[in-house]
């Protein structure tokens, strides 16, 4: 049977690994190529890079990082952040990434999903969703709203509707990030994750809030996630991926244990 995937997420700013809390106060914590190699050696099933470089003139640094990563690790990896159009997607894929994730750009121009899927295949297109819990209303019936621009701008779009719509448009996977949980290390947003995962037929990667191995166990069972994104837990070396996988195996959650 298919294993649940454990995916370290590397936020990269101008070529350096960084980490913030609730999308704010980022500090640089190292070299992304070396970190990717370390996680590959430790048993990561996939790696996600998120380019949070603010100025567009420094974006090419990321392409260089992608190229070096592709020479170093032999598992799938995706790149997101600042992808605005088909040309941005093409650059990242040509540099060696398997998947590209689109977030704000897809909200503003949903055709990027369809065009990307047509040009590179659905398996290449990941929809990144940043979600915040809000009051249930006629406009937001699920009580979860899509926010963009790094969590600063509310869009008035219901998260559940958007997930289903993106699937229809051709997205191959959803990376679902709870902004309320991001960086808190208090656990994933289980209700949100289960709600989305049970209502789409494409895989869902849970993101935001991982602090302890139990949190991954929860989101991969009760949260119905196909994969779990982790960051702080491993970036600060509090846990190793191998250790997390041992824990999950003891909990009878199927993960890949040979690498």
């Amino acid at each position, binding site marked *: 049977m*298919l294993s649940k995937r454990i995916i370290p997420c590397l936020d990269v700013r101008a070529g350096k690994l960084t980490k913030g809390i609730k999308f704010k106060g980022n500090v640089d914590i190292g070299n992304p190529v070396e970190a990717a190699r370390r996680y590959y050696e430790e048993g990561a*099933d996939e790696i996600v890079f998120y380019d949070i470089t603010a100025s567009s003139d420094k974006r090419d640094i990321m392409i260089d990082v992608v190229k070096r990563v*592709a*020479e170093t690790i*032999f598992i799938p990896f995706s790149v997101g952040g600042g992808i605005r159009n088909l040309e941005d997607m093409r650059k990242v894929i040509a540099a060696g990434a398997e998947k590209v994730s689109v977030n704000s750009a897809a909200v503003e121009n949903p055709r990027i999903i369809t065009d990307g899927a047509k040009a590179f295949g659905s*398996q290449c297109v990941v929809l990144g969703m940043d979600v915040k819990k809000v009051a249930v209303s006629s406009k937001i019936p699920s009580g979860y709203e899509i926010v963009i621009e790094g969590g600063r701008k509310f869009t008035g779009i219901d998260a559940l509707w958007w997930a289903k719509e993106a699937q229809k448009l051709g997205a*191959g996977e959803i990376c679902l990030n709870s902004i309320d949980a991001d960086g808190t290390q208090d656990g994933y947003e289980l209700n949100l994750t289960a709600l989305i995962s049970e209502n789409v037929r494409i895989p869902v990667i849970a993101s935001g809030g991982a602090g302890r191995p139990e949190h991954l166990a929860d989101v991969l069972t009760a949260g119905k996630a196909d994969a779990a994104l982790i960051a702080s837990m491993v970036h600060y070396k509090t846990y190793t991926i191998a250790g997390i996988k041992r824990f999950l195996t003891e909990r009878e959650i199927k993960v890949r244990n*040979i690498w």
Partner: protein
Amino acid sequence: MVAIIDYKAGNITSVARALENIGQKYAITDDERKLKDASHIIFPGVGAAGEAMAYLRKKKLDNTLKNCFSSGKPILGICLGTQIVMEHSEENDAECIGLITGSTRRFPERLTSGGEILKIPHMGWNSVNFKREHTVFAKINPEAEFYFVHSYYPAPSDMDVVLGTTDYGITFCSVLAFKNLVAMQFHPEKSGRPGLQILQNFCAWRGSA
């Protein structure tokens, strides 16, 4: 020299990088002459069967591949490359190359396992149950897992060509071996060390199991 067939079907760079990592020289080509001169041929691919076949026919690579197969040259199919060595694919109702009898089928809708509905594509890491030993899979831990991403799978009519199977709601053929052809539904170039080992084994293989 190992030749990677260039037929505009994605992920060729990943295969090339993996070969660089194991120190194997290669050429990416759609030139008939170079393919005939190559010691080994890798037939990778991501995308849809119909488009891939149309391109192969346009470039007459379908015939080249058939000739290389009859000449005994070791051939490695990866993912879509595994599906289109069959006679026919349900994807775009495409007529394929036909090195192996049988067709490529789509996973049934509403696949379940233990009461849970399984998602399509089958995306992620899964294991392979090998039916017998094969040089290309030497030194591979039986517990090893490989990276899959696909909605279709090969269904050969002759069960003797099934080298390995994988479970995902159904048990499907994930590795085919027939004479000098080995083809796998997963991506060895994205399957970590076990995947690199398979590529290394293939490049050293003389074409008879």
